[in-house]
């Protein structure tokens, strides 16, 4: 592969070195290549065909807020685009250096600074990895309660910037519910402190920066709500006849005011794949008989054959007699966990669910982080994969599910699960697989599937992302999503990033985005 050399002047590098030292940055091609993408699948398709994403000119690793502030000031002076980089686990191309520039990897700002057990708050630097943060808290008897599947490869700053939601969000909330205070170095080069304004008046700066995807500034530090570790955990698996009854059960559960920590409802194909886990004993013979061949198909070279005719294959798979699996996890004081389980079981039984016992829930828990890493082998079988996570209110859930399934399934194999639930609605997590052709063909098919899915979502009144964010991937849909509300974000952008250096090309189309890069 041929790499264009970085377009950096000597005096720029001298300034940079004066700020972060000789080990604090890199212009090596290998580093520039490695930082040229996050975990989004379009980049993976491109790399599979040896096509590069735009390369950053330089990677920088600041150690503290002051260094970061000095870097921002340098970038303002030299009109150098800056792209915050956490774990690089984002799946929307949020860290791609669209116009070159400086990738700022936050991982050297990794300390857990304080655990306040009286007020149940923790303060940490934004570069700390999710898993390390949770492990440190658990060692002290606490939990953040934030368990995204990417906990092993995502950072706290990334959680906040991309508005992450963990698997146990029904109980502990999502990242925006956990954040109390932030420290941010804005694109103006200022250090801004936010405060907790909930239940009192004032501008909620926490909610301006949470979700801003690095387009307003760098989140450097956060104060977060924590909880004592739950003394008891319980699991359950239930099987519903179809998605309709399953969705109704989840709605009723959530509207009783109960908060089981995990509620996940899988559609027929997703159920089948889930049931393929070797350790899964709580499954019926019918499902056992089907699960294994399907899993083999997904992992085999004959997958390409199946994917070349999704129009024929999809309807067959969508009507498999597997039923729809509901996974539940309960946490808390034992007496409450028992009561919660009892009430939920009554709701599910009333809707004709079959009780599969603890096993499916336990198996899910054991594999809860591994399932998302199954994508790479698929590329070698001639397929590409991606996920679309959307949300809406209960009255539109079924329509949203059917519309997206219909819109996408003539181009790919598609399955879904209801991944997060609330009293007023929930989110669907669609996984699609399609056949990999040449670069142009694959990219076109990939874009087409996304376009079909997102258009169906918007037409049904859903929101286009529940927890992955927007990045480069979905930005063209954001104006429609926000309507006139985009004016508010644009004001924040004008104020916090007046020089247009912060993560260009992400979140929303900005007319004044400059394509030039000078340093």
């Amino acid at each position, binding site marked *: 592969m041929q790499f264009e050399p970085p377009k950096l002047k000597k005096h720029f590098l001298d300034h940079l070195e004066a700020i972060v030292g000789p080990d604090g940055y890199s212009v090596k091609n290998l580093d520039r290549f490695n930082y040229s993408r996050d975990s989004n699948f379009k980049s993976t398709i491109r790399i599979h065909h040896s096509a590069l994403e735009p390369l950053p000119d330089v990677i920088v690793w600041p150690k503290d807020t002051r260094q970061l502030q000095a870097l921002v000031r340098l970038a303002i002076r030299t009109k150098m685009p800056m792209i915050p980089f956490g774990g690089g686990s984002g799946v929307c191309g949020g860290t791609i250096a669209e116009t070159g520039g400086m990738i700022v990897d936050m991982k050297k700002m990794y300390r857990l600074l304080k655990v306040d057990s*009286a*007020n*149940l708050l923790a303060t940490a630097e934004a570069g700390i990895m999710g898993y390390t943060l949770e492990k440190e808290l658990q060692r002290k008897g606490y939990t953040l309660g934030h368990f995204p599947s990417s906990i092993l490869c995502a950072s706290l700053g990334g959680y906040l910037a991309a*508005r992450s*939601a963990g698997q146990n969000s029904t109980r502990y909330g999502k990242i*925006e*519910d956990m954040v*109390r205070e932030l420290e941010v170095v804005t694109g103006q080069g*200022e250090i*801004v*402190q936010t*405060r*907790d*304004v*909930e*239940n*009192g*008046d*004032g*501008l909620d*700066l926490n*909610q*301006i920066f949470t*979700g*801003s995807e690095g387009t307003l500034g760098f989140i450097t530090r956060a104060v977060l709500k*924590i*909880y*004592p570790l739950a003394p008891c955990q319980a699991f359950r698996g239930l099987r519903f006849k179809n998605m309709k009854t399953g969705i109704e059960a989840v709605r009723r559960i959530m509207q*009783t*005011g109960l908060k089981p920590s995990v509620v996940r409802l899988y559609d027929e194909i997703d159920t089948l794949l889930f049931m393929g886990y070797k350790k899964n004993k709580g499954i019926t013979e019918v499902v056992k008989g089907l699960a294994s061949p399907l899993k083999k198909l997904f992992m085999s070279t004959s997958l390409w054959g199946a994917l070349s005719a999704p129009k024929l294959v999809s309807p067959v798979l969508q009507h498999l007699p597997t039923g729809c699996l509901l996974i539940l996890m309960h946490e*808390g*004081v034992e*007496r409450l966990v*028992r*009561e*919660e389980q009892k*009430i939920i079981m009554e709701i599910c039984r009333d809707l004709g669910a079959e009780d599969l016992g603890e096993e499916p829930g336990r198996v899910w828990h054991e594999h809860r982080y591994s399932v998302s890493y199954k994508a790479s082998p698929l590329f070698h079988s001639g397929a590409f994969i991606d996920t679309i996570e959307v*949300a*809406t*209110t*209960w*009255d539109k859930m079924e329509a949203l599910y059917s519309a997206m399934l219909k819109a996408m399934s003539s181009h790919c194999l598609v399955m879904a699960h209801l991944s*997060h639930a*609330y009293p*007023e*609605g929930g989110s669907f997590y669609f996984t699609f697989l399609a056949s990999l052709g040449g670069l142009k063909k694959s990219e076109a098919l990939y874009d087409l599937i996304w376009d079909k899915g997102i258009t169906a979502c918007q037409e049904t009144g859903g*929101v*286009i*992302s*529940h*927890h992955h*964010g*927007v990045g480069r991937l979905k930005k063209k849909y954001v104006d429609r999503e*926000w309507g*006139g*509300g985009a*004016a*508010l*974000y644009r004001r924040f952008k*004008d104020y916090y990033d007046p020089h247009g250096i912060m993560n260009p090309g992400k979140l929303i189309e900005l007319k004044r985005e400059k394509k030039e890069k000078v340093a």
Partner: protein
Amino acid sequence: MFHLHKISLIAVVDPEMRVIDYEQKLNAEGLTSGYRPVTGMQTPLSACLAERTANLFFLKYGGIEELCVGGAVVTPQGVAFPIKDYPRAATGCDLRRVVIGSRGLLGQFREGSLKVFPLPEALVWGLALFEGPEAALEGVRRMVGSFIRPLFVRIMEEKEGSGLLRSLNLSEEAKVVLAFKLGGLKGMVEAEREAVMKLNEADNVLFHWPVRPAEVEVLDQTLIVREPCLDFWTKYAPLAGRNPASPATDGEEALKKYLRENPC
């Protein structure tokens, strides 16, 4: 305007409606707003949204910013835009939450979509007698840390606490009384009652569970209806792991100034 989506448990309302009227409309349908603004039930919803008025029942139902799931907004420059109803999104900053509490600087709600809840099947008052304020605070921390979410909690020191006990004809002397009100499904409230006692078992905390209608009336009237509760949030925020109202940061003031000079 008042429209109820019973499947999603969302009410679409004219923000000029007073909270008391809104609550009554919901009660007639077996529902509640879960909202009791500290400024009183006569307050219009528009003021609550503009000022992010604290909710006396925040532990169970959350603040107004959590109750609002969408609506229609008009900015100071007159740009009107809808915010569709949704439970959660990761599409940039949350426009609902930035408009709420901005005192109109970022916009005003012309229509509000708010979560509503089934009226609690059971309501139970609990009084726990503690040796001192720290012990009582620890009692609340245990409760909240275990996800037992009363509608309301109140810590009363010696004079006030003893007065309350006397009005209920209870003879105990207590340094500090923790009063709380549990609400929800019958089975769940009973389980919470047992769990609260178990959590405080080791400290020999004495509990009373007043159930007679007259006692409940005294507690409701004294602690909820008549409570002058404007400073409520300052006192009780830490109980929910929240910071009591702190002054605006320099960053916040600077953004406000910019928005005043450059309205949206």
